[in-house]
């Protein structure tokens, strides 16, 4: 199980270079992506999620270039974008079931997985409520439930804990840690505590390039460097 990116480059309209030919390798465990706003974190996640096409470079998943054959990666992929949203007319239970069925999970198993996941994130009583009536915090919990109800091998999480209360954040950390050994998890966040609790290694991006790639031990130094902060030890 290996995900590699080679010379990945993305240029948006107007010539803005979001990613400038980066090379990275991901193995099982949690990789934390840090960097200032506009450094290319979300673009990198969207390229890996195959919802954006690169201008150059390769995304190699188990020997296949997913930049050219995105379905090869999509089968094993779970992407939780920033500000996770669902169909407003679907209930929470229906929406999770729907996503599980799209992953090819059998009907009964999808129903059970959705019910269990909603129960775990504290939305058991709200599972028949329409998503249009959910608060942003409830939607964030729903995104955790989505991440829990699948056995995807590559999990991409973009700012997953923004707006969560401490209990939900602890749940999120536990959930990611519990499954981290069996999957590649790429976590993009500005929250230092989440990175400290979860990340096995840190990749710092700056201006579309990899500024540093270090182990968890050097997290605080890298965090201070990349955001130009003075940190307490």
């Amino acid at each position, binding site marked *: 199980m290996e995900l590699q990116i080679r010379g990945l480059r993305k240029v948006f309209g107007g010539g803005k270079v979001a990613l400038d030919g980066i090379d990275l390798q991901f193995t099982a465990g949690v990789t934390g992506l840090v960097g200032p706003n506009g450094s290319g974190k979300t673009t990198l996640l969207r390229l890996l999620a195959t919802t954006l096409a690169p201008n150059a470079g390769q995304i190699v998943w188990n020997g296949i270039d997913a930049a050219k054959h995105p379905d090869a990666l999509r089968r094993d992929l779970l992407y939780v974008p920033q500000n996770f949203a669902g169909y407003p007319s679907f209930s929470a239970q229906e929406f999770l079931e729907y996503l599980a069925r799209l992953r090819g999970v059998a009907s009964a198993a999808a129903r059970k997985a959705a019910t269990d996941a909603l129960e775990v994130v504290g939305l*058991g009583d*709200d599972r028949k409520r329409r998503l249009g009536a959910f608060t942003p*915090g409830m939607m964030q919990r729903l995104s955790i439930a989505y991440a829990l109800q699948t056995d995807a091998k590559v999990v991409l999480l973009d700012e997953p804990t923004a707006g969560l209360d401490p209990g939900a954040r602890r749940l999120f950390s*536990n959930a990611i840690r519990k499954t981290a050994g069996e999957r590649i998890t790429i976590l993009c966040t500005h929250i230092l505590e989440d990175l400290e609790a979860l990340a096995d290694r840190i990749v710092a991006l700056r201006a579309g390039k990899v500024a540093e790639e270090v182990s968890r031990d050097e997290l605080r130094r890298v965090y201070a460097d990349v955001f130009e902060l003075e940190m307490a030890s």
Partner: protein
Amino acid sequence: MKLLSIAAGELRQRLREPGFLILLVALATGTTYLVPAPTDSYSTLSLAGNSLYGGSAYAGTSAGLDFAVFAGWFCIFALNGGFARDDRTRLSELFRAQPVATIALVAGRTLASWALGAILVIGAMVLLGVTLAFREGSHFEPFAYARNFSLIAFPTMCFAASIAVLLDITIGRFRGLLVTAGLIGYILLLSLTGPASSTTTRSPLDFSGFSTVQAEFSHDTGNPAALSAGLMVEPPGKKPIYWYGLKPEAATVLQRASIIGLSAILVVLTSLLYRRRTSTIVRAASVRGARPIAASSLDTIQTPPSGRALGFVARVATELVFRIRRNPIRAAAGLALFVFAILGAKLAHHWVVTVAMLLPLWWVRAFDESLRPKSLDETLGAFPGGRVGENATKIAVLVILCVLPLLGLAIGNPSDPATCVAAVLGIGAELAWLTTVSWLLRAELLALGVAALWWYVIGFNEVPPPVDYAGLWNVTNATYVADVAFVVVAFFTGRLLLLRRG
């Protein structure tokens, strides 16, 4: 100043929506149909079966009246103030917190809608004017034409825009109710204030200008009979009546100005109804928070289930099940139409197809695609097939849901496969329009409005339409060619739009 800034901002946003350009082109093109040439077999204004004709002033009067009536119909949806849109995207919370008076917030948006209505009037008027200038040559009087067109059409569009904002604020979040109430309310208002009024007096509430035209006509010709607007065929033996058109008299100008005043009063009333401190989303969500989470709750989760790669057919089947489960009434209606089609294939073919043409308008709303947030786009785009596959799946499901009821025609009348094929292709063309404009260009109300208007023109008028896409009048080669061309263009446009998005 703040009011103007709000209006300018909303206007800029709306003008940049590709849907508006399509609306402008569609309306302007449709308007050229409203002034028939002397050789055409239909009229747009008539008196007890006698068609009316005249010069440029008459062309401006009749085209302005018909344009206002038909365009006002769906501009009720297309010219809304964007309040419901902002509620859905949660942008409204930002606007509600601005240091701007509520009336300025509402009036600014309404002013933008008026400006959009004026742009539509001017666009249609100019295109038709150019057509007439070529057709009439030196006889064409541009001032008389433009004066009468704008005198009738502009106040009507102001009124339609004000009603649109009122509906947007009060019931905008209930989209199905909005479409139904808007259509019924518009027709009711039109019939109560226009043709039903006295033939010699101008009704102060007549937003369409119908009583005004009728009063001046009665005054000029001494004929008090009621006029009819719409596309009508002249019965044999009837002689056309000449009329110069509006002059216009002071009372006419006053009546039209009073409609603009009425539209402004509506803005004030609307601002009183705007509940600025009660966002639709927050109100619905604040009833009960989620339960606290115990640290040990994860222990209840067992190993998550494994999936398998779904083929296109399996994905369509999955989507179909969810959509039917979510919309049992729509599904039951489709089944009822299937039975009706079998029973009425020979005797009520026209009605079967006319009702079937409503199915796409109804079903396309059940997919929640037109306003879905970008992050949902990305969540679903990361599944096998990507966005293109996901879109193709949903369109395939829509086709099944809308076309299957029509197959009853083939069962009920197997000796006439051509009408069934033409109707099926017509539904396909309608779906191509709806999904492209509604889902990909995010202009759902425009797509529904144009399709509803076209449905009315084809299903209920006396004049054969230029493109009879469902073969309701006659199944000709042009029907097949138009439908196939429409689907092909929509396919390539859709693909291009999806690729551009990522």
